[in-house]
C-alpha cells in the first residue's frame, strides 16, 4: 500500500499518504503491543514456590493418622520469616487439595510445629534446620526448604534455582520412612530423587 502511494501520479498522492499513515499507525501499534508483551513481568520466585507448595499438598498422600477426620484441613506451616506474602494465603483461600481445605500457620524456630502436614523452613531459620528436623523426626510431615543440602540432612523436599527456574529435589527414603506417599508425578519432575531402598 505504501509503495502504491509513492508511485502513483500527484493527483493520487493524498490518498497514498493517507494509506501510508494508516500503515505507520498499524506498525506502531503492533510494535507497542509486542513491547508490552515483552515487558510483562515474570512471576516472582516465591509466587512460583507457593504454587509448588500447593502442588506438593496435592500430590503427597499423608497417612490416615495425620488426617483423621474427613473435614481436616491440610496445614501448611511456615517456620521463620514468611517469604510468600499474599501468594500462599490466596491459594489457601481459593484452592483445595485432595478435597481438603488448606490452612496456613506461622511458627517461630523454637515453636512446636508438629501439628502441620507440610512445613516450609524459611531461610531465616536455616541455622536451626538440623535442630528442627531432629524434633520432627519420624513424624509424617513433608518438610520443605531452600537450604542447600537439605535433602541430605534429612529433609524431604529441597528447592533449587536452576537457570531462573524453580526446581526441587526429593528424598524419597525419608518420605517413605515417615509414611508419606509421594506421587510419581512429583517424582517425575523432580531434579533428583534420593532413594536408597
Amino acid at each position, binding site marked *: 500500500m505504501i509503495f502504491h502511494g509513492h508511485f502513483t501520479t500527484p493527483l493520487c498522492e493524498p490518498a497514498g499518504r493517507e494509506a501510508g499513515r494508516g500503515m505507520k499507525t498499524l506498525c506502531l501499534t503492533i510494535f507497542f503491543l509486542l513491547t508490552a508483551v515483552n515487558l510483562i513481568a515474570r512471576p516472582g520466585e*516465591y509466587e512460583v514456590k507457593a504454587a509448588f507448595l500447593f502442588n506438593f499438598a496435592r500430590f503427597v498422600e499423608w497417612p490416615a493418622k495425620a488426617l483423621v477426620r474427613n473435614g481436616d484441613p491440610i496445614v501448611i506451616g511456615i517456620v521463620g520469616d514468611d517469604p510468600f506474602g499474599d501468594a500462599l494465603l490466596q491459594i489457601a483461600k481459593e484452592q483445595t487439595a485432595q478435597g481438603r481445605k488448606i490452612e496456613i500457620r506461622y511458627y517461630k524456630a523454637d515453636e512446636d510445629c508438629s501439628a502441620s502436614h507440610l512445613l516450609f523452613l524459611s531461610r531465616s531459620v536455616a541455622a536451626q534446620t538440623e535442630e528442627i528436623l531432629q524434633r520432627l523426626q519420624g513424624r509424617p510431615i513433608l518438610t520443605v526448604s531452600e537450604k542447600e543440602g537439605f535433602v541430605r540432612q534429612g529433609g524431604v523436599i529441597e528447592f533449587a534455582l536452576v537457570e531462573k527456574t524453580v526446581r526441587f529435589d526429593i528424598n524419597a527414603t525419608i518420605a517413605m520412612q515417615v509414611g508419606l506417599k509421594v506421587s510419581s508425578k512429583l517424582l517425575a519432575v523432580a531434579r533428583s530423587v534420593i532413594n536408597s531402598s
Partner: protein
Amino acid sequence: MTSLVGLSLEELTATKVDTVYAASKYEQKTTEAPSSVSIITQDEIQRYGHRTLADVLQSVQGFHVSNDRNYAFLGARGISLGDFNSRVLLLVDGHRVNNNLTDGAFIDTAFLLDVDLIDRVEIIRGPGTTVAIEASTNLVDWQLWLRRTRATASLASLTRTPPTTRCVSTAAHKCHELRLCILK
C-alpha cells in the same frame, strides 16, 4: 496468581522467575541494609546495551562518570575527587578487586570481566551525612553476581591473566556470585 496454580507441574518447572536478592547466599533485608541500594540486573544491562561498568554506573541516579581517554572516573552525588576511584570498594563475588598499585577500581574496559558475565550489580551508597563529616567513610558497595556456568567459563580465561586477578578466579570456582564494592 491463579494462573500459576492452574499450571501443570511440568509447566511450573519451566517457568522463568524473577529471582530476589534473598535467593543468594548472602541474605539481608533491604530495610536492614545500612544505606540505599540500587540493583541493576543482567536483563537491564542487555536491554540498554551497556558495554562497561562505567556505562552501567552512568545510568544510576547520583552517579556520573568522566573520562580522560585513559581511564573512567566515577563521581557520586555530584562530587568526584580526582583520584583513581580509590574511594570506591569494588567487590567481585565478595572479593576485593581494587588494584594493588593505586587502590583504584577499574570500571572501564580495564575492568576484569566482560559485563555480559554480570548477573547483577548492586550499588550501595554510603551514608550521606558522613560525606560532610568524613568523606573517606562514605561507602559505596557494588555486587555483581555471576551465573555458575559463566563463572566457570571466565575462570578459564582468568587463569591466564596476571596474579592480581587471582581473587576472582578463586571465587568463581565455588559461588555463583560476583560482587563489587566501592569505598568513597
